[in-house]
């Protein structure tokens, strides 16, 4: 071919250890340790077993962070997931109260979530000009509306048969089932995003959609899959939520989408797309979970905890910026 100059191009990657230490995930691990030390000093009840005991309530939301990370990497957003959780939980309760077998209840929850996600995906891939923020805002209202209509005038529903939900709320030793599931799903989502061709294409779409399209990436198919999975996982979240609340009401799942987004962004997943990974999101999620458990033990008001998480989030977003500025300042000196 034309390459007559014999120029050699290096293709040996530099060792990943150095990169890992200076990465955002490295910093997050330090914050995670710091938060745990802080919680242990702040609350005398804070230890591994109390953490494991009180964790499950907050873990259901960590599920949502996983597919949300994909959506953010696409450079998009889904703010309808809280409503999907509400609708799934409501329908689950109704089916459960009809004395359906537990497996049917679970499948119903997943199915409702999947259907809602597919609706989002369908609208967004058929009308590609529409901004995801607006579309999912609309479906947020619609899904919650349907849930509220279903709930009727009382606005809440309690389950009569708790056996199945008690069972999935169980533990192996001290470790709750849900923690296993979170870890397993996190690993699966991390591998797919970080190592698979699907993941590479997600990053490609998030960084430059046109180039991805011209390069033969099935942009719309991938978006459809991700939004649908987001719905399925919302259904899963609803089921585990029920295993601790045993009922649904009009406020079920309120603000979950924002918590999921917060975890992901705190974890270094850029909301403009193309950047970040699941590992960061998971560490960030556990920082928030630990903080909630620790502060909750000393009866710190839920609103104050929200405030602290908000401040952390801004700090997390601003920090890379500040670091960049300092670096530039040092370089030009």
């Amino acid at each position, binding site marked *: *071919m*034309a*390459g*007559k*100059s014999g*120029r*050699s*191009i*290096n*293709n*040996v*990657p530099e060792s990943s250890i150095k990169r890992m230490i200076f990465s955002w995930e490295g910093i997050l691990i330090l914050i995670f340790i710091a938060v745990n030390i802080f919680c242990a000093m702040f609350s005398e009840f804070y230890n591994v077993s109390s953490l494991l005991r009180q964790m499950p309530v907050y873990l259901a939301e960590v599920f949502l962070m996983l597919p949300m990370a994909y959506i953010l990497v696409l450079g998009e957003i889904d703010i309808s997931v809280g409503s999907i959780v509400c609708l799934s939980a409501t329908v689950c309760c109704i089916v459960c109260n009809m004395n359906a077998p537990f497996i049917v209840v679970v499948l119903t929850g997943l199915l409702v979530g999947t259907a809602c996600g597919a609706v989002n995906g369908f609208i967004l891939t058929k009308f590609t000009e529409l901004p995801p923020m607006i579309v999912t805002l609309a479906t947020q209202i619609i899904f919650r509306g349907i849930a509220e209509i279903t709930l009727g005038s009382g606005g809440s529903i309690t389950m009569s048969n708790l056996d199945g939900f008690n069972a999935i709320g169980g533990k192996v030793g001290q470790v709750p089932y849900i923690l296993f599931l979170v870890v397993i799903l996190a690993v699966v989502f991390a*591998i797919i995003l970080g*190592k*698979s*061709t*699907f993941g*590479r*294409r997600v990053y*490609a779409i998030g*960084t*430059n959609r*046109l*180039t*991805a*399209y*011209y*390069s*033969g*990436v*099935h942009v719309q198919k991938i978006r459809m899959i991700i939004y649908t999975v987001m719905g399925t996982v919302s259904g899963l979240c609803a089921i585990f939520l029920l295993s601790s609340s045993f009922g649904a009401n009009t406020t079920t799942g309120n603000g979950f989408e924002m918590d999921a987004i917060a975890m992901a962004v705190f974890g270094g997943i850029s909301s403009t797309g*193309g950047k970040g990974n699941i590992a960061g999101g998971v560490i960030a999620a556990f920082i928030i979970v630990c903080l909630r458990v620790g502060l909750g033990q000393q009866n710190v008001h839920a609103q104050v905890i929200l405030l602290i998480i908000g401040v952390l989030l801004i700090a997390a977003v601003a920090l890379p910026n500040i670091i960049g500025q300092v670096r530039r300042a040092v*370089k*030009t000196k």
Partner: protein
Amino acid sequence: MSEYVLELKGITKIFPGVKALNNVQFQLKPGEVHALMGENGAGKSTFIKVITGVHKAEEGEMFLNGQKVDFKGPKDAQAAGIAAVYQHPTSYPHLTVAENIFMGHEIIKHKMIQWKAMNTEANKLLAQLDADFDATAEMGTLSVAQQQMVEIAKAMSTNAKIIILDEPTAALTRSESEKLYTLVDKLKEEGVSIIFISHRFEDMYRLASRVTVFRDSQYIGTYDVNEITNADLIKAMVGREIKDLFPKPEVKLGQEMLRVENLSRLGYFKDISFHIKAGEILGLTGLVGAGRTEVVEAVCGITRPDSGKVYLEGKEIHIKQPSDAMEKGIILLPEDRQKEGLIMSWGLGRNVTLPTISKYAKTGLNDEKTERDLAKKLLEEVDTKAVDIFQPASSLSGGNQQKVVVAKALSQEMKVVIMDEPTKGVDVGAKAEIYAIMGDLAKKGYAIILISSEMPEILGMADRIVVMCNGRKTGELGREEASQERILELAMEKSGGKEASE
């Protein structure tokens, strides 16, 4: 003492790690058009930014009408009567032409913008430039050429005495370029001095009286345009002789690869038919906006044609999206490298393997080792000037970016490669290399469709030339019968083609 309106001496500009300009000089006579030439990365843009006060040089002096000046920022340069018009107009697409012209120096009375006065004033400027649009038109609705005119009007509105045109013809069609030439002549008559940056020799011969050449951040020389030969100028720019700019190989044509029959898309093109054989280079030309890109986009599934048939190796194919086309062996290397061709923030390797990642991923997981080896091999094959495969695509010059785009096409077995303006914004040295790659591909039996507005390129590389005008095919010329005049005649044909664009 002030033989020159602008004189720069011993300018050195250092960026962290690189000397972007090394002791360069430049003199601009009053009322002259002075071309500034050099390969990409030679330091032209940095030099312009020094003149306009965007960058501050570490060393050197600048004289304006014999007076030493020291610009603190772009405002100072503007106040001194220096204005720059860039290749891609940096305008506000949703504002009107008048608002764009007077952005930053609006006509104000009692703290209120005087719209009427501004529009009148803007129209006056536009009339001077023979513009065919009104000051109240929205900027975004104008063509690139018209937007450039607005930029020039903006420069004039600040009473600029020195106007710098940075690759003004790069995005223009031939007739638009002609218009720009007349415009520059007019400005010259009004006593404005012009610095003109361009990769097109045509521009330089047509406009400039003198030319200054930079190479590798250094000043090479200033020449009278009438006295320097093309070959000498290229040698000055590239630092070596380019013997054959268009290395068109003699290739024995194989069987027919692609046949397009009566392809139509309402509002874009109508009844387009052509065919191409293995080893053939088919030139597709016409003025910008003639529908060339639209035709190949329809062939590759980026848009859907309303009617017409596409055959590959004699069999009819139905392509719905780019991935279908690629599976069948047709790939489009799009015109806009930065927006459509590459992911600029990604490493070169990942860019190269993006279309084919699933081929090496046996289990769905990426085989990074194979990818790296393949990327290295392909990038070396097209002779990319890169250090490693991990450096971002944005770190390469335009010509080398184009090579990466070509490498992308080579990562799989292709039959038809469609190159849309492959040498746009590419310097002459890299151009020759891209032509060489093109020739090699043809030799290997690829069928190549070359879309280009550059006449020498089409004439130099194509076996056959299809000319389009207003969405219609107006003619087809063999390599022997083709000439610049014949092509232009067909490209500007007034009759026909109206329907398609209605």
